[in-house]
């Protein structure tokens, strides 16, 4: 089609992407270099609070925000350069931890603790999702046509459950005297507290994520399996290939573009892990990068939010995703160029 028609078709999508993706990203980038503060003044203030017998009055010197002529708090925005990033990365503490050769001290710093968990979460769940997705797709493909519909339905169910609800249901299954914990305690004849240490919580989170995402991979691979070239399969059988060889030399190469696709999607999704941390209330043991950004944005009792640091943390998360995706995208690009030639 000619240029004009093409532009007319993609125009609305591009406009929406600019409005809802590119512009917000640009504002977050800009915000990460600024800090907005109310202008404070120091005053002596007397506050009285009730007790059962009367009142207790305290006089103290307080810093309170100044209110301008329009009745609103006066705020000033100042350019601070990389200060927000420094506050998030806490490099002095990192250097001190390395000087003491202490992995523990390094892992106690919020950003790096979150980064470590996010990376291990992403990189451990990826092969599991691909593996189980493939197994489920092959099973669906080999099942009798009469029950294939119900089988597809049942295998898709985990994906339908909202992540927050899913995380909460896993929590309730395992916390305190939850059903599955009680079963494990009975079976292993010992006391088990799944939520009392970090590694069990991490395991449960990974288990939940694989269970939740594998159906997506399965349905994508199942669709791919429908287009496998039957001639190639038949000639492989005639040549005496075993099941495993058929899988390795015919089916997997055919599915490779889909495997790359699922990898891309999963890397981007898993890196933003958040619902699991909230659903399991695991903030004492396990935190993720997305959760850290959220924590910066949560207002404290006085209504303050660390928007500068939240923006910096967001940008660092985005840089992390981009770095993770580079190898995958490079592979896709060289593949594409190879095919063009």
């Amino acid at each position, binding site marked *: 089609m000619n240029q004009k028609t093409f532009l007319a078709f993609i125009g609305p999508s591009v406009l929406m992407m600019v409005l809802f993706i590119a512009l917000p990203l640009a504002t977050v980038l800009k915000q990460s270099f600024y800090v907005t503060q109310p202008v404070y003044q120091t005053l002596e203030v007397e*506050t009285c*609070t009730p007790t059962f017998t009367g009142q207790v009055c*305290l006089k*103290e010197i307080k810093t309170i925000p100044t209110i301008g002529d329009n009745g609103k*708090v006066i705020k000033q925005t100042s350019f601070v350069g990389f200060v927000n990033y420094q506050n998030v990365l806490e490099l002095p503490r990192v250097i001190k931890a390395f000087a003491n050769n202490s992995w*523990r001290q390094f892992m106690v710093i919020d950003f790096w603790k979150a980064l470590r968990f996010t990376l291990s979460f992403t990189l451990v769940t990826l092969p599991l999702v691909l593996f189980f997705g493939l197994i489920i797709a092959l099973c669906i493909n080999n099942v009798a046509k009469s029950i294939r519909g119900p089988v597809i339905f049942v295998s898709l169910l985990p994906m339908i459950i909202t992540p927050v609800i899913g995380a909460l249901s896993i929590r309730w299954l395992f*916390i*305190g005297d939850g059903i599955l914990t009680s079963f494990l305690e009975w079976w292993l004849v010992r006391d088990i507290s799944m939520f009392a240490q970090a590694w069990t919580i991490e395991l449960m989170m990974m288990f939940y994520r694989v269970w939740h995402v594998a159906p997506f991979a399965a349905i994508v691979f199942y669709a791919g399996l429908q287009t496998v070239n039957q001639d190639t399969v038949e000639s492989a059988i005639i040549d005496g290939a075993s099941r495993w060889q058929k899988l390795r030399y015919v089916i997997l190469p055919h599915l490779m573009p889909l495997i790359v696709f699922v990898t891309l999607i999963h890397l981007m999704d898993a890196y933003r892990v958040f619902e699991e941390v909230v659903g399991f209330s695991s903030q004492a043991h396990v935190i993720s990068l997305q959760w850290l950004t959220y924590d910066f944005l949560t207002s404290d*009792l006085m209504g303050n939010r660390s928007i500068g640091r939240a923006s910096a943390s967001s940008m660092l998360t985005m840089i992390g995703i981009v770095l993770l995706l580079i190898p995958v995208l490079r592979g896709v690009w060289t593949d594409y160029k190879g095919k063009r030639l």
Partner: protein
Amino acid sequence: MCPIRQESNLMTIKKIATTIAISLISSSVWAGCAFENNIELKSLSNSFDAMKAVTESMAECGNVTSVLDVDFKDKQPEAFAANPSLYQIGGVSNGTMVPLLNAGTIRPLDDLVAKYGSQLKPSQLIKVNGEIMAIAMMVNNQHLMYREDVLSEFRIAVPTTHAEMVAAAAIIAKYDVVDYPIGGTYKAGWNLGEEFINNYLGNGGAFFGEGNAPSINNATGVATLNTMKSLTEHMDPEYLVSDSTYVQQQFQQGKIAMATLWATRAGAMDNAEESEVVGKVIMASAPMGSARPASTNWWDGIVFATNMTDEQADAAFRVAMEGIDTEMVLANNDDAVWLIDGYVAGSAAAGAIATADNGAAPYPSSSPGMGAMHTALGNGIAAFLTGEKDAATALADIEAAYTISATESGLM
């Protein structure tokens, strides 16, 4: 035979019945309220039983819509800053009032109190710099709750300090009566920070030095952390994910013998539908720290927006006075520890009153850095309790985190 006529007969009967019903309802609406309110009013508050009782009582005056939302404290600052304000009446606690106070979005009430506030007791008038800014209606604090049958079975005296609690727990732990001797609202975040603040104030500590600088890394701070650690040794190992609802349920299901829990949870222990320990849980004063009870007093009350007409303010104040009158308290006596005339303190309130009588400090919400400090504490103490850091390092890191937040928001 004549279906159409039968239908119209039915319709007429239905219409008459509905009209009668509506007129009965509308006549009973004015029953609880001394005056008929004609101005549209909206209120935003937290969603717990006492607030529900108050807003229902306010609704009797007519034209009052109440929004009860657990996330009210995130919504109120912006809603009240709108001109005109999105809500005329706000339900607040001593903590959540501060952002509204600082932004100037709530109005002084001296003239309104003079005109319509004759029913109010002096202790209900929250004064800031000599101006009445809020009307308090109830108080709340964390205090000790214990299983009377368990303690008397092993002849343990009611603990009055944390050391006594730990000693009692050691005895109870030897027998299989309860799953864990102690329960604690130690969920990382706001709850954990609140526990530290309660204990630290109980030991007479001060949070800030000159110019909002933090000052918790001292002997009192270390002692507080060590006390918390000694208590956790007798708790459910999942204490870092346990909030007050979880601990309340542990009590109701007979899994713990002692806990420091919010007074508003006291009634739930005797709720026959949920609780297996009806009548067995007794309320007592919070354990004493070295200076005062290890607890903080909170009050809940009502504020009124600045951005509304004086006519609306008048009506809103009168409606609120109806909402917190003696009639409402008599009908909902056990929903809260009311400050209002006509309240009869039952057994459920004994702990809260004892704690306040013993001299518990009010939650220091007037300190401008308290918000950032509470958040830093909530995030930083877990590392000490899990053994990743020692007490001094944990406190130093909390002070550093607070300093970053305070510098960022301009307090330091």
